């Protein structure tokens, strides 16, 4: 089983250094691209592979690049979104800390494809070790002639900068990320215009997830058919999956796209800890709908998880066990979303704290049946189309599915006037 993204990451946990990366073929894709391909051909190759964004939305990467105007003068920007902040998600950290040059090579090729001259790695504040590793990797890449003027002797220049953030989940939303990089509050922008046309400082900009960009060198080296052959399903490639919660072996693994949830939970995560029963799972981070044991054979790709009523999201799963209160679980999620709402649009700013307060009231034994209806109503009021960005609709996904699958738990909180779980 091939694991292109992670196979060279040292088991010691140390980062793969430049020389080690070169020894396993690193930067050969960049060399080949600069010698053999036009920028358009690079984009076409990514489009042919049908690489879909690994940050959560699953949009075609090649398509995204193709929207960048090529016949313009002035700067263009390429940004790696390394602001991994979706609760339950810890996949990009692995790539950032383990193989920084793979990301840099992917970014340089992506920048060449859209003819950007400035690139940024936008990294969340908490990733201190990754920031150190990336700082060193960028310096090494400059010294080796992979960055700067006349890269590998060709007429292509690119400067690379690491930006470390100062918190806030909103920074992961690509237009909010651009505002933050411009020194502003991280509120989302209206689309259109899309960043591909008018992004950072009003210039054409591509923002891609770390895992997505890390795939680019491999696609350049091996082609679209190879990429598709890695997968069990129509969505090509491998995917980094993760499992956290009360399982025996929480962790992250690079596996063929489309592995089943059962394989992930039972084989890789080692099943539930002794004495605990599986009740449900957020398949792709905090802003995805719960799935339950009825969905264990769902294939974990974009289409498979969507057909089951949820989203692949980031592919990192959070498990709910039978001794953790589902109402408390969802309260924790809504507390997060209410806190992280940027406050820019009213439904999100007002609605999320309301849902949080209702869930807290339920947990504390002060909930009523009318509160359950109020929660249900909020899942519509804060749903898709009613808010400025995807934060609130994402926040409603675990709530609406919890109301569906764990209804009896919500009702019991009202009936008993207390939380029936012992873990508080």
């Amino acid at each position, binding site marked *: 089983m091939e694991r292109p993204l992670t196979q060279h990451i040292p088991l010691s946990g140390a980062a793969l250094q430049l020389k080690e990366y070169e020894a396993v073929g690193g930067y050969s894709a960049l060399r080949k691209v600069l010698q053999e391909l036009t920028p358009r051909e690079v984009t076409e190759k990514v489009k042919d592979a049908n690489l879909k964004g690994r940050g959560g939305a699953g949009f075609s990467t090649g398509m995204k690049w193709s929207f960048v105007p090529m016949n313009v003068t002035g700067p263009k920007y390429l940004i790696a979104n390394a602001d*991994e*902040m*979706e*609760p*339950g*998600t*810890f996949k*990009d*950290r692995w790539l950032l800390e383990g193989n920084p040059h793979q990301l840099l090579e992917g970014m340089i090729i992506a920048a060449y494809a859209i003819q950007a001259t400035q690139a940024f790695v936008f990294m*969340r*504040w*908490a*990733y*201190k*070790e990754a920031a150190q590793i990336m700082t060193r990797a960028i310096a090494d890449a400059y010294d080796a002639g992979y960055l700067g003027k006349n890269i590998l002797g060709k007429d292509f220049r690119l400067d690379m*900068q690491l930006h470390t*953030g*100062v*918190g*806030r*989940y909103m920074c992961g939303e690509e237009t909010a990320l651009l505002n*933050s*990089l*411009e*020194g*502003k*509050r*991280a509120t989302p922008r209206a689309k259109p215009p899309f960043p591909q046309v008018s992004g950072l*400082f009003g210039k054409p900009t591509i923002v891609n997830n770390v895992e997505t960009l890390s795939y680019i060198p491999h696609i350049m080296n091996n082609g679209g058919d190879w990429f598709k052959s890695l997968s069990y399903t129509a969505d090509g490639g491998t995917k980094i999956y*993760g*499992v*956290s*919660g*009360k399982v025996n072996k*929480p*962790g*992250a693994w690079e596996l063929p796209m489309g592995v089943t949830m059962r394989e992930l939970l039972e084989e890789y995560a080692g099943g539930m800890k002794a004495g605990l029963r599986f009740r449900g799972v*957020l398949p792709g981070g*905090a802003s995805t709908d719960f799935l339950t044991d009825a969905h264990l054979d769902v294939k974990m790709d974009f289409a498979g998880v969507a057909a089951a009523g949820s989203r692949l999201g980031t592919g*990192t799963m*959070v*498990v*709910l*066990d039978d001794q*953790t209160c589902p109402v*408390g*679980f969802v309260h*924790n*999620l809504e*507390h*997060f979303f209410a*806190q*992280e709402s*940027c406050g820019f649009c009213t439904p999100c700013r007002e609605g999320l704290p309301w849902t949080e307060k209702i869930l807290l009231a339920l947990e504390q034994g002060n909930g009523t049946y009318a509160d359950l209806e109020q929660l249900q109503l909020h899942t519509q009021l804060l749903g898709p189309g009613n808010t400025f960005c995807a934060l609130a609709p994402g926040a409603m996904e675990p709530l609406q599915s919890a109301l569906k699958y764990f209804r009896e738990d919500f009702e019991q909180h009202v009936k008993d006037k207390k939380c029936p779980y012992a*873990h*508080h």
Partner: protein
Amino acid sequence: MLSAIEIEQITHELQQVPVKKAACIEALKIVQQQRRWISDESVADIAAMLDMSTAEVDSVATFYNLIFRRPVGRHVILLCDSISCYVMGYTKIKQALTDLLHIGYGQTTSDDRFTLLPNACLGTCDHAPALMVDNDLYRDIAIADLPQILDQYL
């Protein structure tokens, strides 16, 4: 008043950006690095240097949870309170920290040593519960580990 080193570092950042305002977050980071927090005076000083209004700088400073607009202790404890850490029992870690340090969220110990803050997901969910003290990450924390962790920070 900004110190010579702060002015030097902010001036360097200004050279990297096409408009002065774009250095706002970097300027806040630089001043906080020197003074641990951002006072009203610092907001005004940064505003003057970047040709911004104080209100505009403050709107940025108060937006980001890791820019501190109130004094913090010598060390800041950031306890992850997101979902995987919830499932793995961070609330018990919180209680233990409060028992050890006699402070709640947003408070600083009387000797100015620690400030305790909640933080959103630290991205190490397979090793929950997790916390950071300043730049250091601690994972798979048990209550029994806490005294030893805290002892490293004077």
